[in-house]
């Protein structure tokens, strides 16, 4: 224990978090519905979802501030559900930072160590190390109110990692920062987590935040986990319509499956149809889902199928032009890379919509 907070000691201790069929209701309000998740040792994991989806409730449940009606939570293989918050050793950084205004930065950071009856000299050293780690050693004697939002956030992180928690919980840690700071701080968080190798759970409603710093994401909605996977997997292979539309823009086109000459076709409208690849299963009532950049306008040979459409409107976005195009009775968005000198299609123009089937999926719900 000579070198606390170093990469080697903490990295070796990284533990997993196992959430097994956790249920929670407030009265008739079913907030968490049978959540099953496994967070690997040393992983940077995100709970992502709209407000009210239960992500913060789940995080607070791991910290011990909520009690589940059923199921269990294991940290490093040890069941913690019955433990009060102060016996769990999971460090939490609060959305509001919750720095105590009546204590200096140093005293704030020392607090958890004092509660653990760590010897004084050891406290001094570990506080200094934690503040050093977040680059705030020079502000140790300030009061929290004298710090900027970004600095307060770093103090909150230092205060939490000083106790060398088994797991680090971050509750929307970037939401009280301005847009510019957010980008910087999220890099710092990622960097810190990598150096410590600390199992970290991050709660956010912002998919960009989750995508940029997390190894894996659990997308949540309505008290249930919708899909777990790496940012790329979730984007490319969404498991359902919610995940598809929550992560980035998606075109969702209704239609029906028909058979013609032994081949399966997806008919959007009378006469507007495309072939379904052989290996794809399409359930009853499934909808065609594709990203705006996976379609093209005009004669682009690279696309697998082409459908007739009419331009409704266009938005110039800089590197791309986003068209609203009517295909059959559906309206889809299509991003076309902008090249200077190229004319933009006028509303009302008849166009060919090209689609690559590789990147299209059919989702029933």
């Amino acid at each position, binding site marked *: 224990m000579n070198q606390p907070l170093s990469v080697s000691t903490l990295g070796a201790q990284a533990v997993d978090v196992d959430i097994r069929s956790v249920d929670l209701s407030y009265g008739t309000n079913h907030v968490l519905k049978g959540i099953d998740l496994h967070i690997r040792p040393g992983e940077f994991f995100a709970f992502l979802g709209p407000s009210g989806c239960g992500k913060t409730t789940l995080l607070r449940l791991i910290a011990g501030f909520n009690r589940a009606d059923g199921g269990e939570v294991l940290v490093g293989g040890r069941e913690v559900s019955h433990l009060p918050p*102060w016996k769990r050793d999971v460090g939490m950084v609060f959305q509001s930072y919750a720095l105590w205004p009546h204590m200096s930065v140093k005293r704030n950071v020392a607090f958890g160590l004092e509660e653990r009856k760590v010897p004084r000299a050891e406290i001094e050293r570990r506080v200094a190390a934690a503040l050093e780690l977040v680059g705030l050693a020079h502000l140790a004697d300030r009061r929290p109110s004298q710090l900027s939002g970004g600095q307060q956030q770093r103090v909150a992180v230092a205060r939490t990692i000083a106790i060398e928690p088994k797991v680090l919980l971050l509750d929307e840690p970037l939401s009280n920062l301005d847009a510019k700071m957010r980008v910087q701080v999220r890099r710092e968080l990622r960097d810190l987590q990598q150096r410590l190798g600390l199992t970290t759970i991050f709660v956010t409603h912002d998919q960009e935040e989750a995508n940029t710093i997390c190894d894996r994401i659990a997308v949540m909605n309505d008290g249930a986990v919708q899909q777990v996977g790496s940012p790329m997997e979730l984007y490319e292979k969404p498991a359902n319509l919610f995940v598809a539309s929550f992560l980035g823009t998606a075109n969702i086109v209704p239609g029906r499956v028909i058979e013609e000459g032994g081949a399966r076709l997806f008919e959007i409208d009378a006469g507007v149809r495309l072939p379904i690849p052989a290996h794809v299963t399409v359930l009853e009532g499934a909808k065609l889902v594709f990203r705006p950049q996976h379609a093209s306008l005009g004669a682009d040979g690279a696309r697998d199928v082409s459908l007739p459409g009419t331009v409704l409107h266009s938005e110039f976005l800089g590197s791309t032009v986003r068209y609203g195009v009517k295909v059959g009775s559906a309206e889809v968005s299509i991003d076309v890379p902008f090249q200077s000198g190229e004319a933009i299609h006028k509303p009302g123009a008849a166009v060919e919509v090209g689609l690559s089937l590789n990147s299209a999926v059919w989702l029933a719900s």
Partner: protein
Amino acid sequence: MADATTAGRAHAPSGPFRHFMTSATPGQLALALAITVFLALFLIIPVGTVIYVAFTEKGTGTFTLVNFVDFARTDLFIRSFWNSVYVSAMSVVLASIFALPLAYITTRFDFRGAMLIQTLGFLPLIMPPFVGAVAMLLLFGRNGTVNLLLNDWFGFRIPFMEGLNGVIFVQAVHYFPFILINLSAALRNIDRAMEEAAQNLGCSGFRLFRRIVFPLAMPGYIAGASLVFVKVFDDLATPLLLNVKDMLAPQAYLRVTSIGIADPMGYVISVVLIVMSILAMWVSARAMRGKDYATVQRGGGGLARRQMRPWESVAAYAAVFLILLLVLAPHIGLLLLSFATIWSFSPLPDGFTLAHYGRVFGESFVYVKNTLIYASLAGLIDVVLGTAIAYLVLRTKLIGRQWLDWAATAALAIPGVVLGIGYLRTFYGVQLPDGTPLATLWIVIVLALAIRRLPYALRACYAALQQISVSLEEAAENLGATKVRTVRRIVLPLMAGGILAGFVTSFATAAVELSATLMLVQSNADAPLAYGLYVFMQSAAGRGPGAALGVIAVLLVALCTFASHLIIEKSQKAKGAGH
């Protein structure tokens, strides 16, 4: 933007846009001048006179400290001083014992009736403490209900009301709401994440309370405690009615009324009272400075309320019930007394009658009428002054405008008895054409009440104006409204709720004020309710009608407060959820 950054601070909006109006209009100047004259005449000069007399030799007017030496050499005064300090400090302690459990239980636990407790907690404030004193004597005195029962059952008595104990007990019961209000607010303003962060780092139970909750609530507690200290230190009527004369405020009163307004001792005591007030306020300001611990932030919502375990629940309800019974005892006693035929040496009255009410409505209705007139006028003066001062301070660049605010607020530090003495000394020499001294006119009572209550009304008006974005006024001016029209059509309507709140505070507290009026009332025909009560309560035979009058006073103030509360609610709703 200028508005957003300055909200909550005590200086005018600054920024590039405000530089256009550095010069004040003639109307604003005239207004400022009028307020200055009013404050000078009715606050600064009378108080200045008191201080001047205390430091000058009688007759010659040369500076001297001999009056203070006399004060320090007189055993009675020194004893009175320490008695006052002791009684005030013990009242704070006892009031804290009442307030702490109530504040803690209602803010930290899921407690049925938390609202009710917070509301009932205010009740003692709307009755003058000395009125309760009589009822407390009957309930807790040597031969009061409690001691009679104790003696019958267990053979001993508890000296609740003996000597200084009585003053402490009555004052603590009366003033504990100040601590309750401040402490509850402080506890509620602590973000639950503050507590959760500590738990997350391994802290719980009593350590959590000691290291996090208590320090964060401390400034609020100190604010309430120092207010109680000052109020008790300055109170005149309660010790007098309980026949405790060796305290400072009663001594000042007795010197002036028995020896005369020329005797310097009354003035010396007044200066001591002022100094103690300022000291207590300084302590409070120091405690609050740089410690704005209102920490509720985004996503927060006060300390987490916990479910209580069954035995905790029972203990909590028992504690709350006992405390409420105790602090409401004066009201209960007063009600019983007002219906009692004879109540002496028995736990409960011998019989019940409506005769006292009959007598009060017959003979003493003049007191009620006077009170309504005085308190309304005082409240009116206060909100007019309060609104004007708030406007000048927040919306103009008038040089020295802050001084108006400070001068008006300084009235907080002036005990009623001091203001009364100052008025007597200053205005007794001023005579009307027909030869009657100015000090004997009833309007002087109104002015004293108005000055005493001005700080409270001013803060209400100030807060109301602060909440109005300057851009609302700029929009009106942009559309062609002059400054005066803007104030009338935009500012005043938006401030209405705050102004009304200020009026009610002034009215309700002025209606039960006695310290200053006791010095200034010259005839029964001019006396307000509180004075009438005081006269009634001094004789055993007057207690019944006095109690009836007391009940009427409580109902009057409660009704007015409730009515205005409804009006404020309604106007807030009409304005929408924006404010």
